[in-house]
């Protein structure tokens, strides 16, 4: 190999090395950029989906609240009114029948209507969204447990741990509806006699625990049965908890009852604007 050939090969080697380095740099940069961009796109998509789901859920909750409020008002105004009227008429009849054998029966009917009227009023209160807004979550939950206890079918216990603090109107309404749904599920499906509701006010988060002493079930088996058969109750609860930035955990085993734990973070301190708008809405 003469000097010229060595020189030519050297030129090729140097140029080749530089070109190879540039190619590798281009390839690696492209791959890194591609993956970063893809990750970003996926994240954006995920955020969009979550926002969309949250909006849908919020709309559902608003519709549900509105419907329940209407039913509550209807129960209070119409059914309650009719029952009051029936009670007055029965009272008149009781007076007319004084001294006869039919009077105790009418007295009994009056007492039944009175109990029904109380139940209807209690039910209309729990259906009314305004109750949570007026009295707060703790008081509304207490009312709900009282209402269930009064049915005579269940023994109820309501426990509060920690110093209660406001969670915000929307969060409290959502939590109240979640508690109602969990309690209804327990009443319908558990077959138990004891319902316990615990509200734990921690420094950073709030926990709501609903437990029953019923038959329990195998959650894995239920989820295997598919959406149609297993229902969407737990999924709804979980979605609502996530909407509040928290989560919902269900634990159950056959013969050991069921425990639903809803955990949400403590709301951040209200901004001056929020406080102002809160005061304005209260005064209206």
């Amino acid at each position, binding site marked *: 190999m003469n000097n*010229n050939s060595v020189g030519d090969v050297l030129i090729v080697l140097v*140029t080749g090395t530089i*070109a190879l380095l540039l190619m590798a740099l*281009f390839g690696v940069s*492209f791959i890194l950029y*591609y993956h970063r961009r893809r990750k970003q796109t996926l994240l954006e998509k995920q955020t969009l989906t979550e926002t969309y789901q949250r909006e849908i859920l919020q709309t559902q909750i608003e519709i549900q609240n509105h419907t329940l409020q209407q039913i509550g008002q209807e129960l209070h105004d119409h059914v309650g009114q009719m029952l009051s009227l029936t009670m007055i008429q029965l009272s008149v009849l009781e007076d007319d029948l004084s001294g006869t054998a039919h009077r105790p029966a009418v007295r009994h009917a009056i007492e039944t209507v009175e109990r029904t009227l109380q139940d209807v009023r209690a039910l209309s209160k729990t259906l009314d969204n305004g109750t949570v807004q007026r009295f707060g979550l703790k008081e509304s939950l207490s009312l709900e447990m009282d209402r269930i206890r009064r049915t005579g079918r269940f023994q109820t216990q309501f426990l509060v741990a920690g110093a209660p603090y406001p969670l915000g109107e929307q969060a409290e309404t959502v939590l109240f509806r979640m508690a109602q749904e969990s309690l209804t599920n327990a009443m319908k499906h558990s077959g138990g006699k004891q319902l316990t509701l615990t509200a734990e006010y921690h420094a950073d988060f709030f926990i709501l625990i609903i437990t029953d002493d019923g038959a329990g079930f195998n959650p894995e088996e239920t989820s295997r049965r598919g959406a149609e058969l297993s229902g969407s109750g737990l999924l709804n609860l979980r979605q609502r908890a996530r909407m509040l930035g928290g989560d919902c955990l269900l634990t159950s085993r056959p013969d050991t009852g069921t425990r639903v734990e809803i955990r949400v973070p403590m709301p951040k301190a209200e901004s001056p604007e929020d406080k102002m708008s809160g005061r304005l809405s209260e005064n209206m």
Partner: protein
Amino acid sequence: MPEWLVKLSVADKIYLLLLTATAIILTVNYKRVPKNLRPLLFLAAVHLITELIADYIHFSLKQNNIIVYHFLSPIEYIIVSIIFYRSLNKPAFRRAVLLSVPIFVFLVGIFEYFLEPPNHNNSLAIMTETILVVSWCFLFFRGLLDREDGYQPEKDQTFWVLIGILFYFLGNFFILGTLDYFIEKDVALGGKIYYAGYAFNYLLYLIISLTSLVRFRLAQTHE
């Protein structure tokens, strides 16, 4: 072995060996090579034949062999266009590639007739070809960024081959495009620059050979 082959420079011998090896590797693995990259076998064959003819004319007949490269440019572009036609996903881009072939051939004819006769280096044709190929390369890479199907470029043979093609043409753009100028000004410098161009040829065929030998896990989705 013919005498003219012995007279070849080391760089030329390495290049011919590499072209032969690549052609063999591509032939053996032809069915395993993705459909969009199969024209690479013809590219290697055309380059090998062109180099052999050019070396024969130069070393055996002692004549100017530059006319051979005037034929190579349009043939090379047609083969590379087929690769891009099969690799690009958007129909509009594919149509553009298809349309560019007759336009390029027509331009080469114009250059041959009016500007670069067969006894001159065909710099204009090479530069035009490079601009077109680099454009298709960037369209391909841009298209990859829009994919949403879990594509992974590092596991795609086409991605690496097209990086090789991009750098091969970019390198030749500066080297062959300016060769006429440097030969006129400084023959020694022109010679050095000419040999530097071999690096890009080597890299292209090394990439083609290596990617044909490596089993890529990603299913080809460019076709």
